[in-house]
């Protein structure tokens, strides 16, 4: 080979992609051409330098943990739904049972002591708390995984007979993790999954048909905090074990955008 090596040959040489014949011919030329030898050396050094420079972004530890949980979550039987995770593990089932019966007990006691919420709204809150617990115990990935409100909100198109807005600006350390379609009181609801620090929050959005919830929901239920609000068309409430103030911050951010205030839809 007497002609100079072109770019593609030099690159293939650096990448180890030349056939034996091509390599022999290239080596024959390199032995007598200083310019091509210099170029070949540069390409080889550039490749290794790029490999080093390209290893730039270290993965956050929490992402590794989340992915590991997600993969392991898929080991659960396919028929296990969010509400049917009793058999997922003995501990999860025991925890869910304890919390369900505990919540019923606490609900009954609260109903006797403080008539803050009606029996219907309490049942709704109980059902929501149960779903929140089941979500935590199930550990299965949400049906839509995204922190982008422009991904999550459109996902519900055609799945629920109403719409809602999601805030772009969230309180500090608060993140949208995804969403699920669920059912509360036998009606479809959007279940928005947020995290506040390491606490997980379930936000339920459903159509205001029955007016089951009072206009300003704020309650304690089985150790969970419940906070929410009503609009003319929607009932929105959140369940979490996070500090009530921080939960109120998230609910406030969601409430603020329902009528378009301070937020483009």
């Amino acid at each position, binding site marked *: 080979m007497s002609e100079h090596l072109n770019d593609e040959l030099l690159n293939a040489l650096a990448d180890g992609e030349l056939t034996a014949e091509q390599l022999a011919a290239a080596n024959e030329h390199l032995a007598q051409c200083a310019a091509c030898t210099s170029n070949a050396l*540069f390409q080889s050094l550039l490749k290794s*330098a*790029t490999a080093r420079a390209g290893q730039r972004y270290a*993965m956050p530890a929490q992402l590794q943990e989340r*992915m*590991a949980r997600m993969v392991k979550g898929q*080991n659960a039987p396919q028929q296990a739904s969010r509400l049917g995770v009793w058999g997922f593990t003995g501990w999860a089932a025991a925890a869910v049972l304890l919390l369900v019966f505990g919540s019923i007990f606490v609900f009954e006691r609260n109903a006797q002591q403080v008539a803050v919420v009606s029996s219907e709204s309490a049942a709704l809150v109980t059902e929501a708390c149960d779903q929140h617990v089941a979500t935590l115990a199930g550990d299965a990935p949400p049906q839509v*995984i995204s922190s982008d409100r422009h991904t999550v909100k459109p996902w519900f198109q055609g799945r629920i007979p109403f719409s809602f807005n999601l805030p772009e600006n969230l309180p500090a350390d608060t993140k949208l993790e995804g969403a699920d379609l669920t059912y509360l009181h036998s009606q479809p609801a959007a279940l928005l999954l947020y995290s506040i620090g390491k606490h997980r929050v379930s936000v339920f959005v459903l159509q205001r048909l029955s007016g089951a919830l009072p206009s300003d929901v704020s309650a304690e239920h089985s150790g969970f905090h419940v906070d929410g609000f009503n609009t003319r068309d929607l009932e929105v409430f959140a369940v979490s074990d996070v500090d009530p103030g921080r939960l109120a911050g998230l609910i406030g951010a969601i409430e603020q955008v329902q009528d378009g205030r301070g937020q483009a839809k």
Partner: protein
Amino acid sequence: MWKEKAGENRYSSIKMTLLPWKRVDRRSGPQTSAFEDLAMPLLPSLYNVAFWLCRNGTDAEDLVQETFLKALRGFASFEPGSNFKAWIFRILRNTFLTSRTGLAAQRTVALEDELSGSEDGHAIYPEAAIDRQTPEMNLMLLADRAALQAGMETLAPPLLEVILLADVEELKYREIAAVLDVPMGTVMSRIARARAALRAALQTPPSPSNPPKEVRA
């Protein structure tokens, strides 16, 4: 350097089909375990490439998460013994293309005359410009990691992804062709153009009028 051209799409020819990794056999438990064994070690690489493509950590996390979910659900179609790394990187790349960030990247295309030549692989950077560099100067240039990273940030997405797959992930040309769903010749020409662009970027120190792009952490 980059200009938007409405209606043009450098990825328009890319099909969202999976390559010959087909196998219809749905077994949940052992399959998931096999998936875990194959996929978890690749997580740091997937995140690194995702960050390069998305240019921010939050989008990169979303991209990796969605990639994992798709790969997990489609693992039954993966052919054992074939290249899992190429398979999952292809999912990552296709997922990126359909993401908001990816769609924006597709809309941002480079004018051909600014993209260092055509797909036939002829770089516009003259050989003479390279020959003027002595080996010592080349070594000094290549030792500047920040300059090289800044140069990578200025690459068009089709050139950046090919250089990440070839150099960082050390995929072979045929594997890259499978990931990108393009002919091997296109892979070779893109690699040549990407390296020529990097070489030019190294030889042109950043100026106030052409600073390296900022990348959000």
